[in-house]
């Protein structure tokens, strides 16, 4: 189980959180089929460092950004939305 540092509540067990997918996806201004499909469905799914979102569902309830290595599952940092990316 991951120990996830919530930017507001500090380190808490993974069971308190909801994984909220790849971070920094931007809703397309022009909704062409290609842009919309990419926004909804295409994902980087990298093997290595990954920017993702979590929500502290059973805590403060807030979303935040997280940088985790998908090979080691090691979290290098978390940050509040809009704050400088970790």
């Amino acid at each position, binding site marked *: *189980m*991951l120990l996830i540092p919530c930017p507001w509540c500090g380190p808490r067990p*993974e*069971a308190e959180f*909801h*994984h909220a997918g790849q971070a920094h996806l931007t809703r397309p201004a022009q909704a062409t*089929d*290609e842009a919309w*499909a*990419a926004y*909804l*469905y*295409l*994902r*980087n*799914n*990298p*093997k290595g460092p*990954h920017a*993702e979102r979590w929500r502290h569902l059973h805590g403060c309830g807030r979303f935040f950004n997280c940088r*985790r290595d*998908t*090979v*080691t*599952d090691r979290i290098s940092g978390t940050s509040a939305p809009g704050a400088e990316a970790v």
Partner: protein
Amino acid sequence: MGGPTSFSAWGLLRRAFGGAWGEQWRSPEPKAAYDAVIVGAGGHGLATAFYLASEHGLRNIAVLDKGWLGGGNTGRNTTIIRSNYLWDESAAIYEHSLKLWEGLSQALNYNVMYSPRGVMMLAHNQHDVRVFRRHVHANRDQGIDNEWLTPEEAKVFCPPLDIGRDVRYPVLGAALQRRGGVARHDAVAWGYARAASALGVDIVENCEVTGISRGLDGAVTGVETTRGPIRTGKVGVVAAGHTSVLMAMAGVRMPLESFPLQALVSEPIKPVMPCVVMSNTVHAYISQSDKGEMVIGASTDVYPSYSQAGGPHVAMHTLEAICELFPSFRRLRMLRNWGGIVDCTPDRSPIIGLTPVPGLFVNCGWGTGGFKATPASGHVFAATIASGKPHPIAAPFNLDRFRTGRLIDEAAAAAVSH
């Protein structure tokens, strides 16, 4: 070249008096060029190669793997086989697969130990009951066997099951596919490898693909590997959890996320479990191997990862459910567990077919339930690679469906991984 000798009762008897079996497939050095290259020597990749060689006459082909054949998810899954899916497109491909399973040992001259002992899916609440009965009706329309059992009938079919009402999620009924069952996972990889090798297919292990080369027109011209470059005009990526990584080498982003999926086995005990039991709601998958071990499937982790080791709490959750459904298993010790990386699509249906890159084909997205599809997956993918056009059964599973919106939404149909 010469293939291995055919297995028969006479051969078995003769070797009882001495003589080695010999190797069952060749281990050649990779050639400089092939007519087609399959990336990934799991069940699906080896099946693809076998049908390319046996049905489409493509014998100058290679299957490359970064590790050893059958060493990924093929060799570490719960081996459940069934075809009672909701949507017609899914039912068509999984039923095609089930029919191939029924004759596979004969077709490969290799005992894959397909055992149609019945797959029973438990319903624990009113929603489950309605969903499974809807599946039963849909399957009847599709000509696929699936029947509804009362809790008492489920208990008769699977005696160790507890159908008492004093548990958190009592059994309210079950959907049973009698033709469903299990097969020996390693034998499936070995059988396809042996048969493909005998037809001239080069299976090259310890050969990791590190790049996909393309010409000025954008079409595939070959692959870069840790054992040197290989020229080819057709590349089929069948790499399960690592599909996104490979497709990125050709500049293609995929609608995939990779998750660790766990399974575990108990110490071996005497035969007690006559069938496969699945429960989506409490998340428990269990059957008994011929060695006597309970084979248990757990869930995926909630976050994408390539770690090949899921969280212990995920497996624990499944064991708690198993202990409630089967109280007599509570004292069983678990021998080992493992995690495989599965590639999941948004609609939890596979992607089989062409890609935006000419000459590059992909067969992926089988998520948590790809083993059962191994023969059909290879069969329709081979036809797609050979002709350059999607096989009719594969056609609905095209990559373009995420742009057109014609999803095959088994995610909603099953409500969980399946």
